[in-house]
């Protein structure tokens, strides 16, 4: 799951996959603004076949929180 998330983030933010570190957040990735956040959410939902609640969307604030929330909505490791 971790690698898949990184792959998606790398595509959406247009940065090499190695730049998506385990502590990746809008502070470490320049392209991660509120508009691109929408693209990320769309991509993650489609890639993992899940749907976040509106509250969860706003909580996907960094890489670790994304992993956590994906687990919450039923994605396995």
């Amino acid at each position: 799951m971790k690698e898949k998330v990184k792959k998606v983030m790398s595509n959406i933010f247009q940065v090499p996959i190695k730049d998506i570190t385990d502590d990746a957040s809008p502070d470490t990735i320049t392209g991660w603004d509120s508009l691109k956040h929408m693209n990320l959410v769309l991509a993650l939902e489609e890639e993992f076949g899940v749907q976040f609640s509106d509250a969860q969307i706003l909580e996907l604030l960094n890489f670790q929180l994304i992993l956590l929330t994906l687990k919450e909505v039923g994605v396995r490791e």
Partner: protein
Amino acid sequence: MATLSYSEVQEFVNNSHLEQYPKLNISILRNIVVETIEPYWRYFAIKMGFNAQVKFGEYDNVFQEAVGGMGNVLNKDTDVVMVFLKMDTISYDLANNYTALSVEQVHLEVKRIKEYIAAVLAGIRRQTDAFLLWHCFDLPTYPAYGIWDSQTSDGQLETLRELNRFLLSIIGSHTNTYCVDLNLCIARIGANNFFDPRYWHIGRAPFASAALYEIASENFKFIRARKGKNKKCIVLDCDNILWGGIVGEDGFAGVKLGKTYPGSAYCEFQQEVLNLYHRGVIIAICSKNNEDDVMEIFRNHPDMVLKEKHITNFKVNWQDKATNIRQIAKDLNIGLDSMVFFDDSEFEANLVREIVPEVEVIHMPPQKAVEYRNMLASCGFFDTLTITAEDKKRGLMYKAEVARKDLQKQSIDIQSYYKSLEMKLEICYADTFSIPRIAQLTQKTNQFNLTSVRYSESDINRLADSDDSDVMYVKLEDRFGDYGIVGVAILKHFADFFEIDTFLLSCRVTGRGVEDAFLVECMKLSGKRNKRAVRGRYIKSKKNQQVADFYKAHGFEVLEVKSDDTLYQFDLSKPYPDCPWYFKDNNVRL
């Protein structure tokens, strides 16, 4: 065809070498957030051979940008303008508070919005002539008055429809301007899949990801047609495409084709093909079969919707399909990139994809025969911005072309063959009836086109009206039929010479002297207006190699060479080249 995920679409865009493609500058005026659609636009653009650069106007700043010209969203480089106006933002009352309004208040609000639309459209047009796609208002799924709403002309639905009708009518009075019917997009995937309330509330972004794909795909049907990249010819396999089963095994009476299941699915698909035929799409058959078996079905099966007369070219043999498709392109004198091939066999589909990648291939698995019709109807490859009288006759004209080729085989020398065709030309200035076709020809003629300049209808109108230019067309008729308008020339006037800005001919009629006769008339006209010379350019493109020496072959001399752009001149004190002798009774009105 939505096989790539959103992330993969973005990856495809990231990994494409965009420098090789011409730019397509898209400017967006909107009162909603639509940024998430950008990867899809860029994806479809790349698929068509363009590098889309998208410029978003500020959120809810449409009026200022259109009428006030603020923000430089629209400029001279803009190729496409798209407008997204959501009723919720333009009028909270009409969208959300409808039941509280009196009839008079609704009326006033409608009037205000109409004026707003007219002002925005006029404002855009003051700034740019670019191709304009205006998305109509989406209709509510749960209208304000519930079930009563559909019964009354005072309902919210009817009010929004009235605004959409107004939009259509005002758009109809502008050229190069089209309405994208969002409600069709919604109907295809369902409103619940189209709108995403989460991001509507979080960020005023109404569209779900399925909607983004659907809208972008619809947008590019327009752009494909505008750029002349739409397809012209359907190539069909037979077994399990036009009928169920295999005629060579199941026999004439054994194939599935008829009014009831499962044959009804194939009839329905054939009807859709026939509908495209009547829109001007050429139909060819490419099937591995015994020709007699296939022809017997075409001629005698009572449930065939497609008849022999609709098919311009039958390639029924045991050769590989790539060779057959190449031959069809050659016979019909069309580009491989204007063909779409349908086959149920994955092997054949992949073979054609591999060997002739220019051809668009659609694989139709026979277990999904009931979906064939929609697979064809949804592809959008054949969409055109208008349907002209010529389009409607095209099938017949190509059929005649095949008959001509047969006659050609019998004729010994080519000139007597041309004479036997009894060709007759009509050469005239552009008029209201011919302008749509003239614009269409400038947009889609690639091979016999000296400069490949693309013009919209409004451009042609302006050039035709101007005292500094002439727009002329040539029509061709022969004993097999009427081709309609087949060529266009645009002459620009200078002090002592005319310059041929555009000279093109439909590839259906090249190589039989029409181009010679037409050029001679352009020269005569220049002489008649007391000009000293005629100039013409050859601007090299990927596809117009065949006309590289056109001017030279007609006695023009090279004046200037700039990389891919060569300027020629013909001194009118010299005698004109001859119009080919085998044209008779040409009707020239210049």
